[in-house]
């Protein structure tokens, strides 16, 4: 793998919401370049625009302005507006998503939840992914359980397996530990770290938790829609305490 190959590049990405007569710049002229195999964290206070940025990077919505490219392929730019159908096509080829609330289907077993994306779209070479992922995430012994029968940490592991089943290039995690205690949170970030290391998965994680954010290779901070990368002393100041997985 070429470590410096570009996975995702945003240039002057902007998202403006209009509420009545007021214009809110949730993401303001954000430019960043994420390489393949990067593990990045985005931190910032509530309302700073982190989730909106991840939604734009993950092609969940169109930006108001700016450009976004995946590898060498331009996605948004030059006032190009993509339909929901086009966005879905890009998403299922490239991204995996995990959320704070897991969003597992309560009537499907762990195994079925992980297999669910394959009902809609299956990338070649994913035939044995389901069981392999469950084993990798230590959930194979729970494969026949329903979501209500497993813990929050286990549910998030299942959600990760579901996000990974179609072998995405980039995993977007929006507050993946928001509903978990400290121990489970550390476990989930550890899992993400391992996936990043073992399968060279690009991980973009949004979190409030600065201790967890410290686990990433690169750390970004968002304030009022603006982004800045924290390096050196700034990064150390933000993340004072070490984290035990």
């Amino acid at each position: 793998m070429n470590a410096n190959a570009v996975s995702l590049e945003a240039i002057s990405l902007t998202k403006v919401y209009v509420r009545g007569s007021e214009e809110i710049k949730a993401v303001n002229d954000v430019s960043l370049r994420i390489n393949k195999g990067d593990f990045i964290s985005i931190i910032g206070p509530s309302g700073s625009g982190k989730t909106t940025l991840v939604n734009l990077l993950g092609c969940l919505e169109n930006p108001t302005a700016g450009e976004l490219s995946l590898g060498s392929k331009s996605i948004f730019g030059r006032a190009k507006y993509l339909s929901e159908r086009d966005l879905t096509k890009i998403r299922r080829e490239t991204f995996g998503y995990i959320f704070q609330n897991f969003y597992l289907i309560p009537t499907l077993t762990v195994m079925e939840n992980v297999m669910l994306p394959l009902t809609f779209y299956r990338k070649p070479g994913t035939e044995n992914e389901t069981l392999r992922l469950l084993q990798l995430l230590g959930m194979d012994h729970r494969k026949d359980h329903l979501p209500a029968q497993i813990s929050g940490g286990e549910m998030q592991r299942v959600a990760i397996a579901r996000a990974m089943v179609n072998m995405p290039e980039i995993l977007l995690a929006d507050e993946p530990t928001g509903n978990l205690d400290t121990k489970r949170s550390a476990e989930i970030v550890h899992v993400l770290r391992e996936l990043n290391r073992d399968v060279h998965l690009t991980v973009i994680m949004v979190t409030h938790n600065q201790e967890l954010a410290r686990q990433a290779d690169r750390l970004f901070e968002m304030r009022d829609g603006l982004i800045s990368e924290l390096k050196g002393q700034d990064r150390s100041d933000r993340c004072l305490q070490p984290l035990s997985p």
Partner: protein
Amino acid sequence: MITNFQVAYKNLLRKKVRSLLTIIGIALSAWVLVSLLGFNHGYETALNRDIDNMGFQLMIMAKGCPYEAATMMLKGGTGFRYMKGSVMEDIAKEPEVEKVTPILMQAVFDPNKGESGGIAGYFGVDPKSFVEMKTFLKFRQGHWFADENAYEAVMGYEAAELEQREVGDIILMPEKNIQFKVVGILNRTGTQDDGTIFVPLKTIQKIFKKEGEITTVGIKLRKDANSARLEAKLYNLPNVQVVSLAQVKETIMKLISTAKVMVLSIAIIAILIAMVGVINTILMSVHERFQEIGILKTIGAMPWDIFKLIWTETLILCSSGGILGIVLALILSRISDVVIRSILPYAPSGGLVLIDIKLALITFIAILCIGLLSGLYPAWKAGRIRPLEAIRNETGR
């Protein structure tokens, strides 16, 4: 791999009671629909069978109300009018006529019938010509009369069952105090013949002092005969009326059409209610799963995939309801038969609700089409859910 069907099926299991109630609603409308179609089919079949089993296509009767004449022939009745037996000779000369048979119907009051007595009907028939026309009548026991003046009776299956008679028994004609020896008991035919007592024509003419007189002439037409032309000619005979059994059938079907319209209206209302029930159930389900559907889109589902998923749920509900309704209709067809029979002015013998594979399939396809229609709007609505809106909005919508 988990299929679209499995996901849809498991979704429906989340709200078992709601899904079950919706299925019951569909089943009831399927039941009404298949029973109505079965009635349409069964009634006409039963009427045709009754008329065909009469063995003749035209009847000549002494002048009177044609409806009374028809009912008289089909059910038996009182207040008979008579005509000369010689009229048969003129009729038999017509080229369209293959065979004729004279009939004298008589009724007497039987004090032992029912709780407060009832009318007992006797059909005086000519042993030779009547038997030639009614070749389908088979004997359970015995045979036809030995001669045309005998005091012998042939009993229909139900008449014999009702009076517990066997061949060799003696029956008494009330009012006249005349004894008949039972010489034959017919097999069940499913027609009014089952409840009839047949006696020789000449014997009954003598008992009722109606020598040379008859109430009815049954006419069997030649193959490809022009029935309308013969009817026109027979209308010229004095003091008789012509009853075409095709006309009788048409008249009865007209009378019955009111009941059909009523039942059809009920079926349409039941189907509309079931449709609204299905739309409501699926819309509620989509509403409750707003976020979940959004997530399905983030994990790769296209709008069409969501549309198919919701449509499949509708189809599962409708097909389960349809099958349940058809099975119910088949099991309870006897009850439907009794209910329909109780509200109709005239019902032929035999089953009135006739449900066959073809009707069951038609109903099932109709219910599926209704399900597909009902599922269109909820499925379309679900397909349009945008993932981001769903994720952002906990309560959504």
